């Protein structure tokens, strides 16, 4: 186990380097951060050159990248072009997004697994068909459409929940954004659980459990669910990336000042240090989340051993 984790951590290093390099090249080589200072007007060449030198942008790209990596390792993500430390932005943004993602996560896991088990056990019946139709509908309506519709209906028309989120972002206000963020993933979790429950419901070990006279609840929770959750857990690793990226849309709709909001602002204003910094951290989160998911397999399925 320890060796496996170590190997995975080592494998993560090239992936991390490659990913950050890709992002770095996209932002710094394809875009022109200095031109963004000047808006629509063409920059004065002398001033542009001075700013370039100040920010180290006149160095060759590989040099900039190496310098950047070196600074990251000491916890310095640079200064955004408006003078604020990127780390300062992060400390204010990440807790908010973390709360939002957690709300979404709880919703999608709770409802998704329950719906999936219910429909998987009644494959082909009315419940199953309606759950399937619901998931199809949810998957095909894009998040930003559901977001505006729910915000308009629940928040404005019927006044059930606050339509926008205050800067402190308490949990109560994050409920609706959480639902919006979770919906698509919820549909996927439901479908995954449904298929795998329906598949495992025919397994021998389940028949044995029923034949032993175990109560239905125990059969479903201990025997069926534990085996059926493996693909769902697999999905979660991918899903963390989806949630983080989806937060950009959700945070824009509900005006939540989290990671997505700052990232989007950074991209609009071509604020390169902010963009690269935030994306780097998000990629790290994503990689570690996937490692965690892989370790979770072993907990769910003792047949899986890591050498």
């Amino acid at each position, binding site marked *: 186990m320890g060796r496996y984790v170590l190997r*995975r951590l080592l*494998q993560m290093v*090239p*992936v*991390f380097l*490659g*990913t950050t390099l*890709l*992002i770095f090249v*996209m*932002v710094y080589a*394809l875009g022109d951060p200095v031109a963004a200072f000047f808006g629509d007007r063409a920059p004065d060449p002398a001033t542009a050159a001075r700013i370039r030198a100040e920010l180290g942008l006149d160095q060759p790209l590989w040099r900039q990248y190496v310098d950047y990596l070196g600074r990251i390792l000491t916890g310095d993500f640079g200064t955004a072009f408006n003078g604020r430390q990127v780390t300062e932005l992060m400390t204010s943004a990440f807790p908010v997004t973390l709360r939002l993602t957690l709300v979404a996560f709880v919703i999608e896991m709770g409802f998704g697994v329950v719906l999936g088990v219910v429909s998987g056990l009644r494959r082909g019946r009315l419940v199953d068909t309606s759950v399937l139709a619901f998931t*199809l*509908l949810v*998957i*095909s*309506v*894009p*998040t*930003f*459409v559901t977001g505006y519709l729910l915000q*308009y209906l629940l928040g*404005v028309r019927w006044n059930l929940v606050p339509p926008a989120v205050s800067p402190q972002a308490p949990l109560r206000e994050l409920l609706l954004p959480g639902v919006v963020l979770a919906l698509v993933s919820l549909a*996927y979790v439901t*479908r*995954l659980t449904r*298929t*795998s429950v329906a*598949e*495992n419901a025919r397994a021998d070990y389940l028949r044995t459990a029923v034949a032993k006279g175990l109560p239905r609840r125990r059969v479903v929770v201990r025997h069926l669910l534990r*085996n059926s959750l*493996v*693909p769902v857990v*697999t*999905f979660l*690793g*991918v899903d963390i*990336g*989806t949630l*983080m*990226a989806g937060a*950009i*849309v959700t945070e824009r*709709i509900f005006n939540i000042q989290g990671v997505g909001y700052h*990232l*989007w602002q950074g*991209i*609009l204003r071509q604020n390169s240090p902010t963009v690269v910094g935030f*994306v780097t951290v*998000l*990629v790290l989160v*994503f990689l570690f989340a*996937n490692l965690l*998911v*892989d370790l979770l397999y072993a907990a769910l399925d003792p*047949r*899986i*051993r*890591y*050498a």
Partner: protein
Amino acid sequence: MPEPYETPSDALTPSTVGKAAEADLVGVPGTVAGPDPTLAFEGTTGLGTGTAPDSRAAADGEVATPGPPVAEPGPGLGPARGLWQDAWCDLRRNPVFVVSAVLILFLVLISAWPTLIAPGSPLQCDLADSRRGSAPGHPFGFDSQGCDVYTRTVHGARASVTVGICATAGVALLGSVVGGLAGFFGGWGDALLSRLTDVFFGIPMLLGGLVFLSVVRSGSVWPVVGFLVLLGWPQVARIARGAVIGAIQQDYVLAARALGAGNARLLLRHILPNAVAPVIVVATIALGTFVSLEATLSYLGVGLKPPTVSWGIDISAASTLVRNAPHMLLYPAGALSLTVLAFIMLGDAVRDALDPKLR
């Protein structure tokens, strides 16, 4: 298949299972998934997850080629019903497929000739009509620039359909060629591919799209297509690689090699027809995702840009005014959702038909 096996060439991490599942979000994970991770299974693998490539291919082989190694030219032309004919018979009788196919045909038709049902120009607007509701001859009303929402909704289909189809074709082609060759030849190219896909999987699509497209000045569909292909191909490559590795181990491939068939013949004649199914499944499912992703990117202001007519742009423009003029949001949003729905249903139907394991 229950006996423990080793991954054919490169040692892959268990996260491969997860990445493979991503490709198959709308369905059973692992049924079309690539190679299994280096897990040692003790006892049977009755688990509903990652089916070993060889088991999948074996199932394929049983269904697809009931007789001796396929000698048919191209997929399913012989007298015995192969996987393809079987799948086609299945599809024709599947109402989901029929409905989605008709819808998609209609969408393709109106994206090729939008003037068939909407003769006006989407860029011809009169500010005097700004935000008016539906009027005779203008069933969907007007948007805030005074453009006819119906005309714009019909004309917006072109961008979505073009992006969806071109991106999917590009991803499927690039991914299957690279992945297939890597799986076939193995060695350092294969190892490189595995690491490369790891890198691309480290970037969530929407995030990468936002960063990449924000530096692109052009507002046409091609940068969006290019980006989707750039970030999407590793997923198909992984599936194709797994499928090819599974097919290579089949007896008929060995037999063909023993008879002196060259690499090109092996790949095109024997492996391709038996490994292409998972790629098609993943690609059709990706269609809907790509359409949705394009709209989201356009909504965020980085994908397509005016004067390109696109649902994402229209929805974004309407979103701030939803309280006053909901019709501006509802019609393009409805059209977009319907399109994505049609593509996803098609993906579902194709997967059900091509994946023998689900029968």
